[in-house]
């Protein structure tokens, strides 16, 4: 079973526009991570935000976390065609659990 649910499932935008993806989860977490997956490839770690953080930036990426709503968002600013990929949020449980639990992903297409 998957912990998180991404919204929307698919997103199509023009190059230069911003892309926002949302993630909701069910149980308490230690941290939440975002990954990118290009077609037919493995996942690439983008950013990690801990449960006591509210916002984090990395280059054109901005991640927010609202633990009261059990939700996170990933914003990609000034998107490029190369950003076309699937984006997954994944959570690490707040207890002694070890594994990442992934959501179903958002498929982003950036049109040149």
């Amino acid at each position, binding site marked *: 079973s*998957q912990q998180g649910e991404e919204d929307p499932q698919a997103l199509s935008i023009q190059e230069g526009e911003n892309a926002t993806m949302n993630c909701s989860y069910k149980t308490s977490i*230690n941290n939440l991570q975002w990954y990118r997956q290009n077609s037919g*490839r493995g*996942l690439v770690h983008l950013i*990690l935000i801990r449960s006591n953080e509210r916002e984090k930036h990395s280059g054109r990426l901005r991640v927010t976390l609202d633990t009261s709503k059990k939700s996170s968002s990933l914003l990609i600013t000034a998107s490029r065609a190369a950003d076309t990929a699937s984006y997954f949020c994944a959570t690490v449980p707040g207890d002694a659990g*070890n594994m*990442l639990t*992934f959501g*179903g992903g958002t498929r982003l297409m950036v049109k040149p």
Partner: protein
Amino acid sequence: GAGVSQSPRYKVAKRGQDVALRCDPISGHVSLFWYQQALGQGPEFLTYFQNEAQLDKSGLPSDRFFAERPEGSVSTLKIQRTQQEDSAVYLCASSLVPVGRDGYTFGSGTRLTVV
């Protein structure tokens, strides 16, 4: 090596055949994970090793699935008597620290097709 290496990249198996999938994690990485990813879905957890110890195998879907990491480095995921529902991409990930406190490095996966 510089990254997590998985082999083979693609595997076609006839139903009922046994398969073995290999994962070479980043040298020195303590934690190693196996995930199964069906087409259009997110990865689903299968099993977790810390060094050579298999600490969690709760995600293995049946007793036909078996994983090992005998010397705490290379890991093998074995699937016996493959079924069509086993068709998926099998991803391996490793991490320097245990317990998910940092991002994982994933391999490119093995795409298994059972015919």
